[in-house]
């Protein structure tokens, strides 16, 4: 079970960089945990701090800039490429994000996010640039049931895709394991048929 998600209305934190890979989201040296909690403090670790020192935040990185806040991360295209580490999704969730907006997502990251109640919203390049052009006070509204994202101040909006199974899961906080466990007899029948 993850926390259900329906409408997120919030300011956003923009990271206008393309091809953000999972090694940037959470560097490998922080993968040595055996639980899913506590990764948020190391989110974007090497872009966030000078010389790996938490007392020296890099002033030009959006996570360190007081004007930016919110539950929505907005990033350049091909977000989450590289390693399959689910720690990337855990760190984003643990930091406080429920939605990531980009014009393109890597496959494995997208699945990992959805499996943790984080909604990846894929928008057009044009709409992404419109969001980046807004100031820090602007809010975005993501409505999962309607499958729309809008810029609150201007009303500009776009619809996004999500398969209906995953949508139902997110709206209700269901997870795939519950579903798969519920069809175990069918899986066993399938196995028998293969032998």
């Amino acid at each position, binding site marked *: 079970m993850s926390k259900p998600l329906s409408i997120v209305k919030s300011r956003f934190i923009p990271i206008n960089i393309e091809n953000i890979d999972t090694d940037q989201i959470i560097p490998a040296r922080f*993968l040595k945990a055996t639980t899913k909690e506590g990764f948020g403090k190391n989110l974007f670790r090497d872009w966030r701090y000078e010389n790996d020192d938490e007392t020296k935040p890099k002033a030009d990185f959006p996570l360190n800039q007081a004007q930016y806040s919110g539950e929505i991360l907005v990033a350049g295209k091909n977000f989450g490429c590289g390693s399959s580490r689910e720690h990337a999704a855990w760190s984003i969730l643990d930091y406080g994000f429920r939605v990531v907006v980009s014009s393109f997502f890597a496959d494995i990251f997208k699945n990992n996010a959805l499996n943790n109640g984080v909604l990846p919203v894929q928008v057009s390049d044009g709409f992404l640039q419109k969001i980046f052009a807004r100031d820090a006070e602007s809010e975005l509204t993501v409505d999962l049931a309607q499958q729309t994202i809008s810029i609150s101040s201007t009303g500009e909006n776009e619809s996004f895709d999500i*398969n209906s199974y995953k949508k139902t899961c997110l709206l209700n906080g269901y997870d*795939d394991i519950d579903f798969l466990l519920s069809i175990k007899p069918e899986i066993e029948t399938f196995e028998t048929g293969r032998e």
Partner: protein
Amino acid sequence: MNDFTDNMESNNHTNSSSTPSLRAGGTTLFEKIWEKHIVKTIEDGPSVLYIDKHLIHEVTSPQAFTGLNKRGINVFRPKQIVATADHNVPTLNQHLPIKEELGRKQVEALIKNCAEHGVELYGLGHPFQGIVHVIGPELGITQPGMTIVCGDSHTSTHGAFGSIAFGIGTSEVEMVMATQCLLQSKPKLMRITVDGTLNEGVVSKDIVLYILSKISASGATGYAVEFAGTAIRSLSMEARMTICNMSIEMGGRCGLIAPDETTFNYIKGRKFAPKGTDWDQRLASWKELYSDTNAAFDKEYHFNAEDIQPMITYGTNPGMGIGVNENIPTTETIHETDRSGLAKSLAYMGLRQGMPIKGQKIDYVFIGSCTNSRIEDLRMVASFVKGKKKDDSVEVWVVPGSKQVEAQAIKEGIDKVFEEAGFQLRQPGCSACLGMNEDKIPAGKYCISTSNRNFEGRQGAGARTLLASPLTAAAAAITGKVSDIRDLLQLNN
């Protein structure tokens, strides 16, 4: 590159229905395997895909076992799982306890979890231990027609045998442990054909770096990629694994190559390969695994092997590669996919637009990783290095992919060749590919690496990675700078 442009154009605007001549029927290799593994399909949703083999390691499995324990359920099919410790293990003194506490705890958790759930573990000290994507094939666990998953993106490696193999997250690791199934949407299909004969000094790593430089690090996102053509067919199994390994670097869900005699000969006689009449039956079914001549792909690329030179990357994604004699692109000449990131990449790398990469000073050479740590890689390096010494200014680490590779290298005297050259032959693990253990490249230093990712900080915070083939890496070890292996091969003759 030749006639792929038309296909690209059509695919930019429409889906595959725009190429009706290709849609006449016929089934692709991917579809043949996929369809045999569908338990059921959810209406307007994903399919329930049955998984034949599940490989696990210490870094992405602990939370999955915890999840099972919280639900109070056992591993559903423990005999279909194989475990090893590879990601954070030291590559020196593996007989001693792991010094680093968190890494040690992960390895201990793996031992405990495998024992509790009845999963076979090839842990530290076991003669089969090694990088998960090296040991699967060498033990004959990886076989054509299978579905194979692992909580590691380079699971695509196993596709070289004509299997559907892909990386998954830890929630999915838990799903497979619980039900031997995953919910998956069918990817689109891409075929990349490389025809012709490879130039001297050009090996499979160069092929895949070349393809990446042409289609970019996101060029295959959403696709299963089949590699075909005479140049691919001519490769050994280990060389094919290098190509499928890096299909994830193009964003591909998986990479695969139709099995042939090369594949069957590689598998036959391996520890877990089918034996006797079982072998005969399996072999007959494996021979059906190819894309029909009239099978349709959503996207196709064609490349000529003769156009490929020894490759090297200059930037911070694996698509940012050039021939070793070429100059680093400028904002005007670079592929548009990487235009916006070029300045940031080069600032990180300490390199400039338009400058030649050949002659760039190197501090470290890393020969290893699931991309290039197999016995053929070590043989290739040894045959070039024999009788030579490394440059004084470089440190050279050779990390074999498995205990079996290490044992074979020692048996063949490759360890002696490396010792005389001043190369350190270490013990098996992922090592400096991702720097989870002590094998980190210091900030600002240049490492020519046979691994798969040149992301910022991948080999250590601030480390600067140049990806290349084992031959090009070996050339740099001898000269201390980025070199064209062909210049040195000529000196040999």
